[in-house]
């Protein structure tokens, strides 16, 4: 095991300490050790944006705390939902009285903990509404959208929701646009090597060398199929063949593309895949308004990439183009 850690049971605690030391210009700690907040949160007169999830996805989730992004984040153990208390505390930290939009991903644990937190928030008189990201095409058929997992599309959901809140949107407006964002977003992942949770010490799933798992989830959830590893160009095509008909994206559409590495795949390779992604989209008459390439949503040192495409309208474009300042996404 080539992990650089101390006690593997306390990697999240140790990581948070280092994170806060490094980014005190953006984030601050709260009374709850499992909640970090934007240093200016709650922002007066603004709807609060909350998210949360298991650890191991750097820069997600805490890396998206910041200006025009998330106000507070609940932090779980590696690949495991934060507690209901952490979600509740994040909600409290984010609320300035205008309500809180909790924008998170569709996983059983997160769903239950958010529900518990919302019950308690209601008692405290805090209005909370949710958008549950379900952008992963590979996790369920189109007829069961509500079963689909949330993956890197969450970054775009936070970007859009965070921007709307900063523009002065009401809770309903923020929820509506974040929901629109995720409804117009499709993702798929390709895995080429597994990852190891420090406290476990061995990979909790396998991907044979020379093969790739199409549709893999952010925790190694199995995908659509396992194939011999293809070229970058063919991988780009394979991913778009899943994503494009699913929404569907059509000639004349304008889109945002987010191509993220899963952790250990060199960014060089991500640009190689992205190059072909943009070529194919262009061939199909789909215009790339903006693209993000890099490690935006990872799974420890898993290898592979995820591709996320979001169809824009004027409102979404305005939100995507708004400046933002966080650890994971800085945009002027």
């Amino acid at each position: 095991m080539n992990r650089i850690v101390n006690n593997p049971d306390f990697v999240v605690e140790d990581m948070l300490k280092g994170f806060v030391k490094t980014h005190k210009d953006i984030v601050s700690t709260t009374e709850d050790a499992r909640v970090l907040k934007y240093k200016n949160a709650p922002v007066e007169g603004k709807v609060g944006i909350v998210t949360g999830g298991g650890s191991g996805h750097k820069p997600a989730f805490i890396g998206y705390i910041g200006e025009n992004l998330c106000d507070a984040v609940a932090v779980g153990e590696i690949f495991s939902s934060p507690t209901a208390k952490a979600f509740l505390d994040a909600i409290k930290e984010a609320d300035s009285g205008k309500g809180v939009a909790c924008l998170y991903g569709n996983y059983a644990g997160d769903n239950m903990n958010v529900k518990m937190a919302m019950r308690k928030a209601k008692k405290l008189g805090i209005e909370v509404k949710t958008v549950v990201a379900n952008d992963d095409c590979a996790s369920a058929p189109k007829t069961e959208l509500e079963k689909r997992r949330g993956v890197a599309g969450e970054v775009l959901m936070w970007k859009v929701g965070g921007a709307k809140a900063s523009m002065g949107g009401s809770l309903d407006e923020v929820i509506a646009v974040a929901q629109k964002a995720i409804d117009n977003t499709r993702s798929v992942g390709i895995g080429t090597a597994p990852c190891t949770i420090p406290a476990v010490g061995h990979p909790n799933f396998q991907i044979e060398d020379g093969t790739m798992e199409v549709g893999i989830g952010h925790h190694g959830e199995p995908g659509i199929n396992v194939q011999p590893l293809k070229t970058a160009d063919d991988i780009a095509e394979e991913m778009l063949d899943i994503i494009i008909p699913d929404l569907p994206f059509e000639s004349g559409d304008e889109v945002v593309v987010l191509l993220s590495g899963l952790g250990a795949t060199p960014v060089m390779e991500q640009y190689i895949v992205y190059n072909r992604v943009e070529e194919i989209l262009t061939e199909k008459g789909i215009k790339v308004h903006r693209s993000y390439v890099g490690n935006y949503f990872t799974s420890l040192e898993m290898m592979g990439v995820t591709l996320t495409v979001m169809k824009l309208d004027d409102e979404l474009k305005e939100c995507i183009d708004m400046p933002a300042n966080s650890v994971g996404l800085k945009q002027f």
Partner: protein
Amino acid sequence: MSSFKNADAGVIVDQLIKTIQKERDYLSEIDGKIGDGDHGINMNKGFTMCEKKLEGTTYNLSEGLTTLGETLLEDIGGSMGPLYGMLFDEMAQACEDEEEITADVFAEMITASVEGIQDISPAQVGDKSLLDTLIPAKEAFVEAKEAGKDFAECLDAMNAAAEKGWQSTKDLVAKIGRASRLGERSRGVLDAGATSCYFIITTIGSTAKSLL
């Protein structure tokens, strides 16, 4: 006796903590077969934290259950935190105003716990989860009571149904949780959550019976 005192029944929570601590490794071993092998660790962590909070205090049943539920909700994330947190929290709320825990009160406690869990989880009987233990146990208790059985007999019925429900998970294909990704491969082994739920229900049942 047909009831026991809330004030005397803090021991039920003590026994729950001891049981989970004792079964820690077994629970993880079962989870390791089709899950990620941490169920015993997760449960032990939560119950032991609760033990620390209760240490040196006096508490009746509802207070003990409240602390247990809150601890799970506050300190254990994942799925177990909210599921068992809800279970114990609902049980506690259903008896917090009662001095005497009668069969009627107990029926409300276990019914409330099932409803609470179903409020946050879409899991159904047959999905291979703790509900395969919990729901038959609740139904057996309620049916026995409606059939006019006394409290002790109801508890026996509940315990027997819990064991049967637990064992039923062996032949099920997981439709929920981590194991669901294995499809057919999840058949043939017991479910970890159903196992911990079996220990929890039967510990409550046996300890309650001893208080009657």
